[in-house]
């Protein structure tokens, strides 16, 4: 059933495949993000009670949901790596961790900047904010473990176990606003059910969300490629690649 996937377990094949994907991803990122952000920040209607402050929604919500999405991706990679001892999965988890940490930080910072004018406080220890902060610490722990060992396979195993333990935090973040009473409001846009915002506010959000998701895809692909190179630096194909690159650089300098 999974036979078609097997060629991609080869680092060289994955390296070249992601190399072909990156230009498409980055072009689409620029397209979606520029349409989405200009629409959201300049043309979408302001909220009736929050006014223009509401526009931070278009950065805060994509960042927050992607921070959880990236963690889920990292957990799936950690799971396959632990069970099937599939080395590329470790490389992809290591590529995703810092991107996820940055998106979590963006969600926390924009949330804080939104909370001050609307709620009246920068921070409150309610279930949603606290669990999102724990997510940031989980990411930092995973990054630290990936860099704590000389042996990449051992590092991947340690970080993978932490990632899987931390997966329990994802449903807690998602349902925190339903299970407990919090200052944070419920979800405006959820995967099921009707969004609680008008259509002319929703469309710019769709573009912003896809734009940020493609941005994550682009950065993760770039980081994944360098992880592959670092982990395979003694392989002949990497050496050949490096030689080719340095020859072309020299040729440029000698011109």
């Amino acid at each position: 059933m999974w036979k078609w996937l097997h060629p991609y377990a080869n680092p060289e094949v994955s390296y070249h495949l992601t190399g072909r994907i990156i230009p498409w991803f980055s072009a689409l990122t620029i397209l979606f993000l520029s349409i989405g952000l200009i629409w959201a920040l300049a043309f979408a209607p302001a909220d009736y009670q929050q006014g223009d402050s509401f526009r931070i929604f278009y950065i805060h919500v994509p960042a927050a949901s992607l921070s959880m999405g990236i963690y889920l991706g990292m957990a799936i990679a950690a799971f396959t790596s632990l069970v099937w001892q599939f080395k590329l999965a470790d490389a992809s988890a290591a590529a995703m961790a810092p991107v996820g940490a940055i998106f979590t930080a963006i969600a926390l910072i924009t949330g804080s900047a939104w909370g001050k004018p609307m709620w009246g406080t920068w921070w409150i220890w309610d279930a949603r904010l606290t669990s999102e902060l724990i997510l940031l610490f989980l990411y930092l722990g995973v990054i630290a473990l990936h860099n704590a060992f000389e042996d990449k396979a051992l590092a991947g195993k340690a970080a993978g176990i932490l990632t899987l333990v931390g997966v329990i935090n994802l449903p807690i973040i998602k349902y925190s606003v339903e299970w407990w009473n919090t200052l944070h409001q419920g979800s405006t846009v959820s995967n099921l059910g009707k969004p609680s915002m008008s259509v002319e506010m929703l469309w710019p959000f769709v573009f912003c969300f896809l734009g940020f998701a493609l941005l994550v895809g682009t950065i993760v692909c770039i980081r994944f490629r360098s992880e592959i190179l670092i982990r395979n630096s003694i392989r002949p194909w990497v050496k050949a690649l490096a030689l080719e690159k340095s020859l072309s650089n020299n040729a440029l300098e000698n011109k």
Partner: protein
Amino acid sequence: MHPRRKKRLTIVASILIGISFVAGLVLYALSQNIDLFYTPSEITLGKDGSGATPEIGQRIRIGGLVVPGSVKRDPDNLKVTFKLSDMKMPITFDENDLMISVYYEGILPDLFREGQGIVANGTLVLGSSGELHIEASEVLAKHDENYMPTELADAAGKDYKKLEYTNKQLENKN
């Protein structure tokens, strides 16, 4: 599946099940404490399940909806009192709802208005008339997840005027 992979799958799956079981128990044990605030009915009747009520003099947070018509502002200073009732969907107010008064002195958040969700942080006090109220040191606005342009809000008859302060009220701020 290869027996070694099967073994590793069993180990990983049992770690995951174990962790979710432990986390479930911890969250269940802490469920009362994770709530950010007491609702007005929880202050009077106690939390669902445990029936725990806050003590007089305890610092607590209260969360509820500002009862329309209950906001009384002192024209000379920033003192304000208002009543909170439980948040419920759809939003309705009834005279028989359990309500708790909140006393506060200071500038209220921009989103403060009748019918709005509010979380106040303060001390639970038993007044001279035998009625419980909160002397708040902080009032936060809790907005909902619905966003809409002004025209739609006007059409739906929403009230979204900001509070205004007179110079006299602002001068007497300590």
